[in-house]
């Protein structure tokens, strides 16, 4: 039994190895053949191949996460550049970052273009020798197209190295269910609601009203409430020297756990199936801290809830949650083609399309003035002028330094909040335990 099993596994492994080596060697020889014909063998007409790079067929591997809708745009790009084929590989955010890290660390397997989220960009910036400096390919010229703080997040301190081009940003708003608001006797109009819930104290009072009237929580995921408050802070987990300054978010934590203690928010963890299905059920009233890219998530999880959701501005001003960059790992054999594609993809016109398609909010301020953009309404969200609302939110966003170890802190705080919400643990004890766990892990960095 075991022998057979081993044999099968071995055979599978061998096939795998053969397939891998075959693949890389063939693409290697492609590249070499091209170089050879230019440089060595055809010395008489050497260099002719270099100038018109439009001719040779080029394949670009592109790793994407989230609901970006780049497949549609890649098709469009291919129409104008028939020689370029984009192979999109979609996966979960954490997986894509892990895979990118492993392939860079191992020195093989990285794609031509990789999407990197804002909370991870600092980590990859430390390995900037593993990426192309996009300034060498013309990035410096397009820098002015983007929000300055967003642009700087993907830049070395002295500004000489540009690791990525910005895709979207995540100015936060508050999504809400009109049916639940109506039941609770609160305003259903987005401006009236925003005026009513202008502070977090008012939000807390509204939570009690909703609880009394409908027995539903005002929000279902405690971490989302915490994130909403956290993202309004100018400094979050680390200062620019990399010191842990976690007390900055203690207020957000206390507010969240107080709401949990009074039964005003639910128990769901982000990204779980329960969390997704609750979007369709209307079992809660608001989703605070929801950025543009959340639009695609809500529509995907609750396709039948059209007209029941609406968008208002968030109490006490917007923060930023998420948003990404497109990078070109140093392994790519076609950096120029890869750069040309991502420069096109992040240009204002294409960012506008990504916004219409999946709600990715543009990082190019030119778009904000665009009449067509500002006139965008979304039938799903009760005809809300989504673009105008997010653009308004974007104005109050301030850049935040996230640091290399952001996710360690965030994971442990998530665990603490979940323990308070689900297990009924004591908030202060959980906070202390989380800080201890964080410090243990940071010590090893």
């Amino acid at each position, binding site marked *: *039994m075991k022998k057979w099993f081993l044999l099968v596994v*071995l055979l599978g*492994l*061998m096939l795998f*190895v053969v397939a891998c080596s075959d693949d890389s060697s063939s693409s290697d020889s492609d590249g070499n053949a091209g170089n050879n014909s230019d440089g060595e063998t055809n010395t008489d007409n050497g260099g002719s191949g270099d100038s018109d790079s439009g001719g040779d067929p080029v394949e670009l591997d592109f790793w994407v996460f989230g609901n970006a809708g780049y497949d549609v745009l890649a098709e469009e790009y291919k129409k104008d550049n028939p020689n370029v084929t984009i192979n999109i590989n979609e996966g979960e955010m*954490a997986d894509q970052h*892990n895979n990118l*890290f*492993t392939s*860079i*660390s191992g020195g093989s397997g990285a794609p031509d273009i990789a999407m990197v989220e804002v909370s991870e960009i600092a*980590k990859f910036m*430390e*390995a900037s020798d*593993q990426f192309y400096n996009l300034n060498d390919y013309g990035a410096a010229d397009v820098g002015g197209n983007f929000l300055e703080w967003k642009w700087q997040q993907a830049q070395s301190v002295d500004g000489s190295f540009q690791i990525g081009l910005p895709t979207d940003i995540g100015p936060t708003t508050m999504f809400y269910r009109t049916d639940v608001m109506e039941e609770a006797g609160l305003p259903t109009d987005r401006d009236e609601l925003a005026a009513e819930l202008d502070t977090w104290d008012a939000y807390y009072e509204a939570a009690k009203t909703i609880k009394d009237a409908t027995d539903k929580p005002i929000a279902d995921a405690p971490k989302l409430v915490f994130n909403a408050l956290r993202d309004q802070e100018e400094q979050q987990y680390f200062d620019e020297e990399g010191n842990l300054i976690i007390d900055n978010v203690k207020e957000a934590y206390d507010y969240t756990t107080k709401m949990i203690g009074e039964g005003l928010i639910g128990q769901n*963890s982000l990204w779980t*199936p*329960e969390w997704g299905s609750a979007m369709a059920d209307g079992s809660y009233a608001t989703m605070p801290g929801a950025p543009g890219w959340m639009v695609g998530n809500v529509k995907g999880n609750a396709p039948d809830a059209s007209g029941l959701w609406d968008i208002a501005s968030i109490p006490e001003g917007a923060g930023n949650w998420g948003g990404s960059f497109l990078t070109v790992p140093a392994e790519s054999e076609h950096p120029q083609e890869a750069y040309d594609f991502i420069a096109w993809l992040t240009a204002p016109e294409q960012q506008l399309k990504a916004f219409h398609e999946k709600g990715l909010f543009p990082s190019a301020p030119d778009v904000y003035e665009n009449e067509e953009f500002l006139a965008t309404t979304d039938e799903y969200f009760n005809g809300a002028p989504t673009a105008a609302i997010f653009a308004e939110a974007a104005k109050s966003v301030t850049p935040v330094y996230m640091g290399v*170890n952001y*996710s*360690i802190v965030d*994971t442990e705080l*998530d*665990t603490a909040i*979940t*323990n308070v919400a*689900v*297990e009924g643990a004591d908030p202060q004890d959980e906070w202390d335990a989380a800080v201890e*766990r964080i410090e*243990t*892990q940071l*010590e*090893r*960095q």
Partner: protein
Amino acid sequence: MARMNTETQVQMPSPKKKSSLSEKTKESLSGYLYISPFFILFAIFGLFPILFSFYLGFQKWNGLGEMEFVGFQNFKWILTDPLFWKSLTNTLYMWVIGTIPQLIIGIILAYALNSALIKAKSFFRVSIFMPYVTSTVAVAIVFGIMFNSQDFGLFNVILGWFGVDAVSWGTSEWGVKIAISTMVFWRWVGYNTIIYLAGLQGIPKELYEAAIIDGATIRQKIQYITIPLLRPIIILTVFTSTIGALQLFTEPLIFIGRTYREEGITVVLYLYREAFANLAFGPASAAAIILFIIIIVISSINVLVANRISR
């Protein structure tokens, strides 16, 4: 090969002696060639990582930058981390809950499959082995849905029929362990059953016939014939499932996700978190080395006990 050919050509005058020698070398050469794929692959994917992690255990490395020698600092961190000890006890608990029932039920199932009473034997044999061929990730995802912490999760609904309150499988101390152990149980029980079945079929029929003539009951037959003759097989399964249980990883990773909650973290998941979530490859390798030593110790105890039993 080419060189050998020329050799035989040159040595034509006395072909008998020489060719028999080169035949021999040829044979052993081709023998080594046949077994080489395993050793080459093992060297690349098995041996090198093992040696490299021993080296890494004494370094500080984030996977990209320069390595820095830190002596035993990594081991000190790991051994003084309460979470590491928690992960070790978790692993042992899940080993007990997941493995021991698995072996007992495996024997019972194998006995049933081997008995003359059951029709469509091959159907049952195949279906009991099916979970083993299923992808672990798929198992963990499906069980994750069934062990949903909400009231509508399948197992909570079933508990509800008996008037038991919903259990938060994803976050409570024992809920997590029971859920993960159930996955392990479901996936491995068939594998052990088939191994036991092979063992049972190796027991000569005459022994049972003689026992029947002597008027033995079913219980006596099991106690005095089946179990003693099955002993080597039982020892084998205890070995493999112990080592397997100490390396429990995929199920908890999928089930508790990237929160690495302490209720369900196992030793391997702990070192995975150190390496691939926190990029602390030094402490991760140190944890791996400690796990390696623990497995050696437990295996030695296993061998000692097994020797004593089979004597």
